């Protein structure tokens, strides 16, 4: 039963192919940017990771609401796994952002609204993970995490607007990565990369759920063994 299902394996292969396609399109198909050169390639993965990060937290939000209504632990598992994936991709955004920034504007960090919001998002979901890591009984933890998952997600747009207004005053906007004259082939590569990353997200989500289920089963086996040994 713990063998990954056929559909999971299939999803894995599709993701693998799509990632290969995205790599091909980013590095070979799309032209090299005139000013920045190869560093610009990071853009495809930066944006795709950001998309995944926000998407993952949207799933946390939805799964949290459904969990609170249905009390089905399955949704709690989805929220948990999705948050962990979200943190990973947010971290990728926060690492690739400064690398891009260094090449583009000769500065590691800019308090650009989207990047700054991502940073706050990262902290919000680290807090979510910390709540999950604290010692409580499973159901209580699931409920509290779900509540924070909802609060955190509602907060994100407010954070974004606050930072945007704040940044508009202090630091004039110089950023417009998807704006204006993007080369069509670059756009194709970006779309391919976003699609590949979305599949990657779902693959990781499934994998994470399988791991959680395996852990749950292991716990049950241990309990039965302990009961028998008495």
């Amino acid at each position: 039963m713990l063998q990954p299902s056929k559909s999971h394996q299939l999803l894995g292969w599709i993701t693998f192919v799509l990632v290969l396609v995205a790599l091909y399109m980013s590095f070979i198909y799309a032209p090299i940017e005139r000013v920045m050169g190869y560093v610009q390639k990071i853009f495809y993965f930066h944006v795709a990771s950001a998309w995944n990060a926000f998407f993952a937290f949207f799933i946390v939000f939805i799964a949290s609401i459904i969990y609170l209504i249905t009390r089905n632990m399955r949704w709690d598992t989805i929220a948990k796994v999705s948050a962990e994936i979200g943190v990973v991709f947010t971290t990728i955004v926060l690492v690739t952002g400064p690398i891009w920034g260094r090449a583009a504007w000769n500065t590691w960090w800019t308090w650009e609204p989207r990047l700054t919001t991502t940073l706050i998002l990262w902290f919000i979901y680290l807090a979510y993970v910390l709540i999950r890591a604290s010692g409580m009984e499973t159901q209580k933890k699931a409920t509290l995490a779900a509540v924070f998952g909802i609060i955190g997600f509602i907060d994100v747009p407010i954070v974004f607007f606050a930072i945007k207004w704040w940044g508009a005053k202090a630091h004039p906007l110089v950023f417009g990565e998807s704006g204006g004259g993007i080369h069509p082939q670059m756009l194709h590569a970006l779309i391919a990369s976003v699609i590949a990353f979305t599949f990657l997200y779902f693959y990781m989500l499934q994998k994470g759920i399988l791991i959680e289920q395996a852990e749950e089963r292991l716990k049950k086996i241990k309990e039965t063994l302990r009961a028998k040994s008495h």
Partner: protein
Amino acid sequence: MRFLAKIANIVWKDLVAEFRTKEMISAMLIFSVLVIIVFAFAFDPVGETVRAVSPGIIWVAFTFSGILGLNRSFVNEKQNETLLGLMLAPVDRTAIFFGKVITNFILMVITEAISLPVFFVLFDFRMEGSLLQLLLVIFLGTLGFVSIGTFLAALSANVRTSEILLPIILFPVLVPVIIGAVESTATIFNQGAFEQIVGWVKLLAVYDVIFLVVPFILFDYVLEV
């Protein structure tokens, strides 16, 4: 009306208990003034920097000292399991939330009313902007801080290490309040027109409403046993 009377009863109980020992309020006050003094050493208190950094100092002092109060507000109810006693009482659970919000708000306002003049004196700061506007911003900022803070304090009170957890989960969510309060306070200190802070005031008001309503809906889940 019975709902309001019960909220008032909870506030009465909290304030009587608090002012018998003054545990929380004294700690909040002392800490708030200490933060201001630490900043006096960190930045030159007589230079031109004061004007630029003062809104930040004020709000850091308010929020940091506020955390002390928030930390205790539900942990105190764990002694003798009084929170369970409240939950067994025939009152909607949200009355507990609003009661605690009001108590924390009162404690914060007292702290602010004392530490703000202390700040003005220590930094020899001449207040030139509109006092009324400043009070409005302080009111909205404090309300936002207290509403989400009380909610997350109730959440983290379930954890043994709640005092470590609360600041970590509260401050990221609080970012809009901090930005809005500091920016509008700065504008007021620079004698900016009211139009310049209207956007921030609206942001604070929206935040306050959202984070009074959402906890209202979710509070039952946080108290669940």
